[in-house]
């Protein structure tokens, strides 16, 4: 009688495969001393090596920073901070002791400037910037309050475009009392993908015709199709300075690439001597307690000068080595008890 019952039970028997009975072959790692202690030691030594390399590279980068906000009366740009001065030009003199190795990169920097604020960051109309002319007539509402002015739509609309940085710089080297212009290279200062893919001019020749019945942004002095009249590939929305500005920074103190110094006599860098920087001071920062500065820098495989990463690697590396010694002591003292 039991056999009949058991025959019925066989039909309901669960399957006996390795997968369903949890008998799959498995790797069972164990945090054993033979792996952890040498591992920490190796990681510590590797980190110390990387840290030393990073620090040496960082120390070899030359950086020269000049603040030109003009808040102190002794600053050459002080008179430009007076209220409502337009087209003010100030000159900053400085000298370089040793050869500043090229290629030299010239940045402008701002502090206390929050390009990462949410409302500021969404305030642009992407369809305009890709060259879609139908959005020239009706900009997106994200651009408020920089959407329309005098009843006409603004192109390019939004707060990011409106606040574009408009100081310009000219660098002169003083040789025998005479000022010699240092040539700047403004090609390819924005990301390749920004220039070639993300931003497009509308398909009109001349470009001006696309902007009929639109207004330029309130803060700008020239409309978008006059940003660089000498070079059509740098005009309109694909202007390199515009692209650099539109790539908004993550942190409140940032610097953006302005030009490169790579041509002519300055191919190998800026030779030692006296220099004079002529600044067209247009951008107001004092109202929000920001500062403006220019930075000369050369770069290496790890980018600009940044000592934090090298020091962090060194510190963490030494801590790893110390920890491995501590763990060795703990392992030796509290050897795992051999009991069932």
């Amino acid at each position, binding site marked *: 009688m039991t056999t009949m019952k058991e025959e019925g039970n066989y039909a309901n028997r669960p399957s006996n495969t390795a997968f369903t009975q949890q008998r799959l072959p498995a790797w069972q790692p164990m945090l054993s001393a033979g792996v952890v202690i040498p591992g920490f030691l190796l990681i510590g030594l590797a980190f110390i090596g990387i840290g030393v390399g990073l620090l040496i590279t960082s120390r070899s980068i030359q950086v020269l920073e000049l603040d030109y906000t003009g808040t102190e009366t002794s600053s050459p740009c002080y008179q430009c901070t007076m209220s409502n001065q337009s087209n003010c030009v100030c000159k900053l003199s400085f000298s370089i002791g040793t050869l500043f190795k090229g290629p030299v990169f010239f940045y402008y920097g701002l502090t206390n400037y929050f390009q990462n604020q949410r409302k500021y960051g969404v305030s642009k109309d992407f369809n305009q910037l890709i060259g879609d002319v139908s959005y020239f007539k009706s900009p997106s509402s994200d651009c408020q309050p920089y959407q329309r002015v005098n009843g006409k739509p603004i192109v390019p609309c939004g707060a990011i475009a409106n606040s574009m940085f408009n100081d310009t710089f000219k660098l002169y080297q003083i040789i025998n009392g005479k000022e010699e212009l240092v040539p700047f290279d403004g090609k390819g200062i924005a990301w390749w993908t920004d220039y070639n893919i993300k931003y497009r001019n509308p398909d009109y020749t001349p470009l001006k015709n696309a902007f009929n019945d639109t207004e330029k942004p309130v803060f700008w002095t020239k409309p978008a199709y006059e940003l660089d009249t000498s070079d059509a590939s740098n005009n309109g929305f694909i202007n390199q300075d515009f692209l650099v500005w539109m790539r908004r*920074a993550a942190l409140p103190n940032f610097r953006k690439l302005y030009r490169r110094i790579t041509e002519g006599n300055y191919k190998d860098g800026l030779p030692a001597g006296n220099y004079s920087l002529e600044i067209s001071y247009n951008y107001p920062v004092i109202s929000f307690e920001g500062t403006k500065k220019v930075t000369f820098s050369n770069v290496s495989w790890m980018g600009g000068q940044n000592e934090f990463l090298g020091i962090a690697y060194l510190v963490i590396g030494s801590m790893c080595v110390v920890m491995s010694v501590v763990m060795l002591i703990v392992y030796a003292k509290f050897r795992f008890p051999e009991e069932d």
Partner: protein
Amino acid sequence: IDCISHFTFFYYPKLYTPGQRNMYFNRTSFLLCIMQSCYNSLILFFIPYAALHDTVRQDGREIADYQSFAILLQTCLIIVVNAQIFLDTWYWTGINHFFLWGSMAAYFALTFTMNSNGLFFIFPTMFHVFVSGTGRNSLNQPNTWLIIFLTCLLCILPIVALRFIFIQTSPTINDKARKYKMRRDEIPAISLRPPATRRVSKRSSYAFSHSQGYGDLVTSQKFLDKKTPRRPLLFVKSLCKLAHMIIFGFFVTFTQL
């Protein structure tokens, strides 16, 4: 997931005590979890912040822009979370491997796809927020990878060190059982005494045999044909006893000769 089989639990009922005493899910462990999360969050933000705040790319262009920073943080986060799962998994079957490495691979595949030029041309309005090109532009910098390496190891290494020290100084019963199992290759039950009561029922002992090798034995119906369940160790023991008796008998007879 524990590597200790149910068979082992049957002979070591003390292994059930961590579950009964709520050792793995109580207020202390929850608090420790929160503290670890806070530490991880601070590291995940401030290390990239300090490393990127005043630097540029290899070619001098911008690296500290909003979208690059976001991608950097996301990558660090994905790697840290997956590494934490790696540390917490004690029993790695093929499925575990597939899901862990697969999710990391999927993250990178999706990032590069979403940042690709092709997808941007097909759906410009959807993908502009994202960042066409950011993945490539930021993740091809050695600086970025060094930051990711530092951040992830800084989040993981303290956990590993603390776990190792706690296993050495105050091992839980599961740690001891794991170590015991690692040292002994065979299943521990073979060398132990049989259970106190002998089972007389004809039902299969399938429910008790959850380690490899016993399932086939049970399902082959061998047990169902016999009156009393004959267990291999009993058989071996009786063989040993028989052998002893034979040798003793020979010895006795030889000495008496």
